[in-house]
Each structure stands twice: as structure tokens, then as C-alpha cells.
């Protein structure tokens, strides 16, 4: 058994038995146990699987797990073939079409299945992408670049900085729009980060992902991706936004401002909802329809201002009944420069936390507050507790929801280490993160119509 096979999930006794029989993953093998024998291809074992079974793909295509006991006989009866992914021919690039850059941060916006082994391979080269989503060839000249290969929960402030720089490079080279393929879990954080880091954008920067993995026929990846490329290359706005399903139907893709969008459902396609906002635009049948006229205009002559620095010394403290204020002290001890309090209701944190907050402010920590209600605006003048917090020096962040507020605090403290300066910057509307009016928009996912017809 070679190194490669060892990395395929088999361990201990089973690995020894396979090694003794000279079997590698992909080989055709025969396993005989108790007078019954199974023939098929040896399949890699999931890392989380137990160490007592081997997985064989039968001729019928079914996988089964066979328990390997001392009396089980394993024979290798044929050599395995490597998974084959024939790359389709690159379609003709249409020179009249705009140029789109697709940056990949990981995950699989487009992937292909090897039915023989069950392996899923990401399709990330331009040619692979065209193979999986041939419609792209009619929308734009697509170039691709892999920036990271990470699950989105592994991205940090440093990755946001690198990504912002990468986008700036491509825009400098004349891209008509930038698309970033991103895992959905932290996509809204990255969108907010890029919104602050990329100012005065000449062209749109659209983040896109999928709630159903792209190896399945019902995946939302292709529909979202096509809409993202259409928005990036055709839309009249030049902002950072997220393109994802607007409903559970495949008919309409919402384009929502990067500072005003949040993942609100663990699994639905329409998980991204605008918070205290409406979508910027909607892509329907290839048409980009603007839903507001309050947006930064696309203008190729605009000069991008890149501010890619984020502080790592920022913490989020969610208030809950019984929160131990020592958590706040701990962050201060650890050298934290900014704390975002996720308060209740209109913006409250219990009195028993006041000493800790006062101490933090006195030590130069920027303490700001957003509401865990997510929807709505904080107003800390209504109740005593709010007024007390204001007096302690806590900065209310109006209608910013906690995740965007947190990212903004990280960005602000990446720009300045002066607390007073930082507090001023926090309150300035940089990328549409504040809206002066709170409108009667739908909030949450509840009550949404399921269909988008």
C-alpha cells in the first residue's frame, strides 16, 4: 500500500490486510467472507469512518462496507484506473464581451463527479468552468484565479487583506467586474470587509456561493454564478455585493449590498437576506434589474482607493442573561483594542457589566454596541440603561447588525490606533452600512413566500 492509499482513510488492521493483499484504492478486488464473495472497486474510506470495514463499489454502482475479520480473504483481481476528467474544449472567446475575473477562495463553486470512484473534483480552471457552466461563454470573457483553497470558516482578517489586494490588482488590469467564489458560512463577513477595504470602486465586486454543493444536479451554484457574472459585468452600480437565490425557486437572484446582508438560514437557497435594506438589484432571466437608485455608479475612470488593513485585536461579546463580566476583563487583559457588544433590544447590557465596560473604556478600548435583534436600529436614549451605557462611552452603531459592525470595528482599528479617531471613523458611513431611514421592509425569513413565481 502506498502513501497515497494510506491517505485514503484506511488504518490499523484493515490497512495491514489490504497491504498484505497488495490492494490499492481503485483496484478491482474480491472479498470472500463466510462463503460469500463480493467483487468491486476498492473505494477510499471516509476519515470519520471506523477502522473495521472496507468500502467496495459493486458492479451495480452501489457501495457497501465489508467488515474485515481474520477469516476474510482479500484478493486483487484487477488494476484500478485513475479517475478521468476529460476537459471539454474551451469555447471561442467572444472579444466583444466584457472581461470578468472569477477569484476562488475555496469550496467548489463548480465541480464534477467521477461516478466510478465517487470522487468529486473541483472545476476551477476557466476551461473547467465553461465545461460545467457553458452559458458563461455568452456572458463574458472569463478568467479565473485560485486565491485560497479554504473552507470559509478558516478565513481571517489576513485573508480579507490579501483578497482585497488581489481584487485591486485585477481591477487595475482592466477587469469589467470581479466575482469571488466563497463558502457561504462567512461570506457576509468577507463582503463587509471588502466593502470597507475597496473604496471608490470603478466596477462591481460580487461574492457568490452555493447552498447545495455543485456536484448535484439541483445545485444553485451555476444559477448564482451566471447571475453574479452578469451583475459584475453589466450592472450600473460599482459596489461590493452578494449574489444568491432570492427565493427557493431558481428564477431570481438577489444582489444585496455587502454591508447589509446576512446568512439567515442554515440550509435554504435563499439564506442571504438584506438587513435593514432591500436588495440592490435582482437578476431575472439574464436581465439585471435595479431595485433602488441609491447606489455608487459604475465608472471605469474612477480610481480605486485600497485600504486593506484589519485589526485582529477586536472581540465580539454577546450579552445574555447571566453573562460573566469577567469575559470583558479578560479581553482587555489580552490586549483587545475594540469590543463590539451585542446588546439586547434597543441596545442594552446589564448594570452588573458596567464596571467592566468602564474599565475597558478607561484603558483606551473602543467599545461599540449593535443589537442582537439583528433587524432594527439601536436607540440608547429610551431607557436608563442605554443612557448609562452612552455615558460610559459606548458607541451606538445605529442600524448596523452585529457582524457588519464587528468587521467595521476591525477595519477602523486597522486604519488608526487612536481611540478618538477610531470612534469618529466608526460613525462615518463608508460603504452604505448605515441608512438614515428605517423602512417597513420584510425582516427575517419568516413569512416569506416560498415561491418566486
Amino acid at each position, binding site marked *: 500500500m502506498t502513501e497515497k492509499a494510506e491517505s485514503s482513510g484506511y488504518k490499523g488492521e484493515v490497512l495491514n490486510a489490504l497491504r498484505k493483499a497488495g490492494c490499492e484504492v481503485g483496484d478491482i478486488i474480491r472479498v470472500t467472507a463466510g462463503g460469500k464473495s463480493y467483487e468491486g472497486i476498492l473505494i477510499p474510506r471516509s476519515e470519520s469512518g471506523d477502522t473495521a470495514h472496507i468500502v467496495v463499489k459493486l458492479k451495480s454502482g452501489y457501495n457497501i462496507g465489508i*467488515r474485515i475479520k481474520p477469516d476474510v480473504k482479500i484478493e486483487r483481481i484487477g488494476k484500478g484506473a485513475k479517475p478521468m476528467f476529460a476537459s471539454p474544449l474551451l469555447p471561442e472567446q467572444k472579444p466583444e464581451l466584457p472581461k470578468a475575473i472569477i477569484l476562488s477562495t475555496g469550496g467548489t463553486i463548480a465541480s464534477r463527479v467521477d461516478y466510478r470512484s465517487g470522487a*468529486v473534483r473541483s472545476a476551477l480552471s476557466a476551461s473547467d468552468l465553461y465545461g460545467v457552466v457553458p452559458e458563461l461563454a455568452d456572458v463574458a470573457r472569463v478568467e479565473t484565479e485560485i486565491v485560497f483553497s479554504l473552507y470559509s470558516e478558516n478565513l481571517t482578517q489576513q485573508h480579507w487583506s490579501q483578497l482585497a489586494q488581489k481584487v485591486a490588482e485585477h481591477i487595475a488590469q482592466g477587469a469589467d467586474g470581479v466575482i469571488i467564489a466563497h463558502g457561504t458560512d462567512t461570506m457576509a463577513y468577507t463582503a463587509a470587509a471588502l466593502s470597507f477595504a475597496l473604496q471608490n470602486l470603478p466596477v462591481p465586486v460580487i461574492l457568490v456561493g452555493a447552498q447545495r454543493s455543485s456536484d448535484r444536479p439541483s445545485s444553485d451554484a451555476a444559477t448564482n454564478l451566471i447571475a453574479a457574472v452578469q451583475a459584475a459585468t453589466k450592472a450600473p452600480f460599482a459596489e461590493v455585493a452578494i449574489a444568491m437565490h432570492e427565493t427557493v425557486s431558481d428564477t431570481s437572484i438577489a444582489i444585496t449590498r455587502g454591508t447589509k446582508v446576512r446568512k439567515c438560514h442554515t440550509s435554504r437557497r435563499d439564506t442571504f437576506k438584506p438587513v435593514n435594506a432591500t436588495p440592490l438589484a435582482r437578476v431575472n432571466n439574464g436581465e439585471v434589474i435595479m431595485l433602488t437608485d441609491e447606489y455608487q455608479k459604475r465608472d471605469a475612470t474612477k480610481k480605486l482607493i485600497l485600504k486593506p488593513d484589519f485589526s485582529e485585536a477586536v472581540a465580539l461579546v454577546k450579552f445574555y442573561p447571566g453573562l460573566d463580566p469577567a469575559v470583558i476583563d479578560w479581553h482587555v487583559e489580552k490586549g483587545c483594542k475594540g469590543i463590539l457588544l451585542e446588546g439586547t433590544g434597543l441596545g442594552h447590557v446589564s448594570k452588573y457589566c458596567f464596571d467592566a465596560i468602564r474599565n475597558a473604556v478607561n484603558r483606551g478600548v473602543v467599545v461599540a454596541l449593535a443589537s442582537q435583534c439583528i433587524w432594527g436600529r439601536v436607540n440608547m436614549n429610551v431607557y436608563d440603561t442605554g443612557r448609562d451605557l452612552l455615558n460610559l462611552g459606548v458607541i451606538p452603531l445605529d442600524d448596523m447588525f452585529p457582524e457588519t459592525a464587528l468587521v467595521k470595528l476591525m477595519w477602523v482599528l486597522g486604519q488608526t490606533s487612536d481611540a478618538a479617531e477610531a470612534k469618529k471613523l466608526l460613525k462615518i458611513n463608508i460603504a452604505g452600512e448605515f441608512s438614515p431611514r428605517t423602512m417597513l421592509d420584510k425582516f427575517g425569513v419568516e413569512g416569506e413566500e416560498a415561491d418566486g413565481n
Partner: protein
Amino acid sequence: MAIDYAKIGLKVGLEIHQQLNTQAKLFCSCPPALFKEEPEITFLRRLRPTQSELGQVDPAAFFEFQKGVRILYEANRATSCLVEMDEEPPHPLNMEAVEVVLTAALMMNMQPIDEVHVMRKTVIDGSNTTGFQRTCIIASDGWIKVGEKTIPMQAASLEEDAARKTGEEDGGKTIRYRIDRLGIPLIEVATAPVIYSPAEAQEVALAIGRILRDTGKVMRGLGTIRQDLNVSIPNGALMEIKGVQELELIAKVVEYEVQRQLGLLQVKEELNNRGVKAEDLRQEFVDVSAVFQRTKCKVIRKALDKGQMVLAVRLPKFGGVLKRELMPGFRVGTELSDRARFWGRVGGIFHTDEMPNYGITAEEVEALRKAVGAGVDDAVVFVADTAENVHDALKAVVERAQEAIAGVPAETRTAKEDGTTRYMRPRPGAARMYPETDIPPVLLTAELVEKIRASLPEPAEKKVARLMKEYSLNEKLAKQVVDSGYATLLETIVKASSVSATTVAAFLTETLKALKRDGVQIENVADEQVLEIFRAVGAGELAKEAVADVFAWLSKHEGKSLNDAVESLGLRPLSKKELEVIVDRVVAENKRSIEGLGNKAFGLLMGAVMKEVRGKADPDLVARLLKQRLR
């Protein structure tokens, strides 16, 4: 003429699917139930063929995708959650369903799999919101005895049922599916292809069906069981026939399929004799709309009025071949027509073998032949629809005609209610299966297997013997009850009512069979209702002569109760007093005619009274009252 199936080398394999009557669906906690009302929820999707090695994409599916086919799903809250909508990952495999399949598998002497892996089988016609059907093998390699013969059983699998198609719109561009059925657990049992005659196929299916029913956990009724057949003859092709719903139809479907293949082989010979080559059939289509400018043919008239066109193709030396019958009401022309319907989304085709007809005149046929340059030996096929559809349709027609020269094309066909089959789609390529990574593998532990083995349902022979002994049924009736799958119901009824086992058994076998023959939808009446009927009989609230009528009424009035039936049929039993009045009246009316008849008078009067009160009074009571009067 009887066909000697052994001589022609017929081979049939069976795949039996039956829904399981579990508490919940296979991958979520929704009830396994359907709904009839208007949907509360609808949503639109497109399914995109996932790319693998080129050519592995199902050509039919890819074709549909390219045409922009959309699927409109219908759902309601009672029967579906986000899992069926493909808006939430599947929950772990339903272990109740696993146990039912294991039970059936052990009864078929199969070996359980050590560790079950759920797979995704790609299906992108819209019948699965995910674009694949989840399926797993639970056990394999067993056998059952059918008569003297041992039938090897390949495997028992557990899979999710698909959504059901409820319609099509925009000329086939939007397909409607209802997702209530999606996720209902299905057991699939497959035999090896070792069945050599139509009658045997039916017998084996019956035997498997009986075992499945013995688990006590399968659904009954139309649509809950589906038989797929793999039928092949030498020189013909392996045909996959889907969805035979009635057991009684299996033999007929196999017979017709053999006839069809033999017929196609003769057509091949005939075409070869005529010297036609595949390359003679060209995709050269002629716009013949002008020929039909003044046509009386309604279909063509309607198409032309809508601005559509008539397109024609010449099939050289096919004259007379298209009208050749392959199955009842099914000709070679139907083969072409089915392909045109599928690939071209047209209603059907016209061809010169059936002309003049449908309002098309001999003159028009002549002009048509001239327009495409057809000679007397040639056939011409023509279609009226949109430009896109007629091109696709004729392309499919030419391809099918080319296949006729080579013999029998391998296809997936669907069974109709009359036993004939129609083209469904091309045979899928290699099984397109890959692992369902959202569901962890399930261990079938030795403890689980032993627990199930220890409580397997009673085998059929033992059950027959026991029914004879415990319920004093004769052997024939006991066997019939066991075959019918109603043995458990029989026992329940007999235990819960005082009605004799023979009466109940006769109803569950002969009466139900007769009702079914008369077109009564017997599956519409739930077992609980049957139990209720016999309880009423036992309690003297319903005459046993009325059972069949009540049953038939209930089958036509779903959701209604036994009381409703009794009320509506006027079957409320007569009280003893009411009966006495009738008996007295009848005796009085017949006073003259019975005088001097002595004992014979009883028979005559009994007949007269029963004529009035049948179904509303117990004949024994009538007899008793009469005898009192005559004494």
C-alpha cells in the same frame, strides 16, 4: 399461435418496488402520505446534468436541459418539509424502514450487508428535487422457492420514492411534479434473469409480493407497488420495462414485448431484403406547409392557423412497413411516433401508410409525395408543429427508422394499462451512482440481524396449516387467504367479531376478487373499515348479505363512514318487530296459495320475505319467525 418461449430463449428478470408503511419518510419525519387538494406551496427549479466523463451525461436529460425545461414543484405542509424541497440536508436513514427491508431480505435467504452506504443515483427528469434518487443495498444474494424451482434473488435495496408527475405546460417546457410521494420508503427486490416464460414471471412476482406483504409493513393499493421487468430474447435487445402496476398484467406485458421484438426482427429482415441501408435514411426535411393550405385535416389546420409549419421526410423503401402491427393497436409507425413525441414534444406524426385519413385527401398525399420526391415504395412521415419541434421530431423519426434496419433498439419503456409498452427514454448508460455524503453509513450489527431473524413472520406453508387448524378453514380457502395477503386482517377480524372465519375468508378472497373484476377500487377501503363492517355484522347491526354492497359504496365514497353507507343504502337492519309485521303481511297475502302445500309452503314464503328484506335481516331470524307463524 402459441409461442414456445423456451425455444426462442426468453429471459426475464424482475424488480419489484413496494412502498413501506412506516411512521415517517426515509430521510425526514414527514408522514408517508399523499394529498389531493390544491398545493399550498409551489416553486420552480431547473436541473443541470452534472458533468462527468463526456457521454456519461444521460442524453435525454441533457437534451431536456438544453431545451430549457423547468420543473414546477407542488407541495403542502402536511406531507413535505424542507428535505423534500431539497432545501435541507437529509436526516439519517429511517431505521424502521431498514428493519422492514432486512425482514424481507432474511425471508428471501439473503445475506445482510455489514455496513450500508447510501448512494445517489442521478435522475434529472425532475422526479427528484435533488436530481438524484437516494438508494442503498441492505442485503444480497438469496433465493426463494417458487413451486419446485429455486429463484436466485440478487439484492434487496431501500430507496426513496420519487415525486409524481401531475402535468405539463407550455408545450412540455414546464413539467409539474408533486413532491408528496418523494421520500416515501420503497423496498426494491431484484431477481436474477432466470425466468423463462410470461406465466412464470407472474408467478414469481406473486411469490415475492406475498413475502413483502408478510412483513406487515408494506402499503397496499394501486400505485404502492410497481414491477419493473427486464426482458430479452436472443438477437433482440434487453428492454427495461418500468411501472407495471398490476400483478395480473406481468404475463401480458412479457408476451406483448416478445411479440414486439419478434415483429421488429421480421421488419429488420424485410428491410434488409429490400436492400435499405441506414445511410439511405437522411435528415433531409422538406417544408410541405404549402401542400396543406386548404386542408380539411383539423390538426394541421390548427397548426397552420397558429403560424406553425408542416415538415416532411422521406423514408426510402419503408412503404407498407409502418402499418405493420407489433402489439395490439401498436404499429411500427407508433414506434416512430413515440420517439417524435419524446424528442420533439409533438402530439404525434402522420405517415403515408395510414393515408388518406384524418381529413387528408388522396390529392394532398399525392402532392406531399411529389414534394419530397417519394417513389411508390417509399413512406413519408410528416408533422405539424413549431419549427423547432418538427425538426426535433423528424430527426428522432429518422434515427428510429435507422435503428429498425439494425433490429431492436435497447430502450427503457413504460407499461400501459392494457399491457402494451411505450417508449419512455433511452437506456441510461453505466449506473450513475456516487456516494450520498450527507448520510453516514449505517452498521447492520449482528445483534440487529439476529433480533430480526428471531421474529421473522411465519412462512406461507406454516401459515396455511395454522389457519386450517385454528380457524377450521378448508385448505383451498386457507391458501387463498394467504395468497391474498389478508391473513393478518382475517385473524384480526375473527378475533374482534363473532363472524365465522369461513365467512370472512370468503369475503376477503372470492368476494373481493369479484368486486375488483366489477371495477370496484378495493384499495380505497382501509383495513380498519373492513374490520368495522364485520364488527357490525357480528353485533347484528348489519346483515352479512349486505357486506359487499357496503364495501363497494365505501370504495366510491372515500372519507365516509360505515353509518353513512348503511344510511345511504337503506340497509339499517329491521327490528324484530318490523320483521314480524312483514312476515305477517306476506303470510296473509299468500294465504290462498299456500293452503294445502304443507311443508312446501315454508320455502315459498321464505323466498317472498327474503325478496323484501335481503340485506336488512338475518335469514335465520326470518326462518324462525316464519316457522312460528306456520306452526
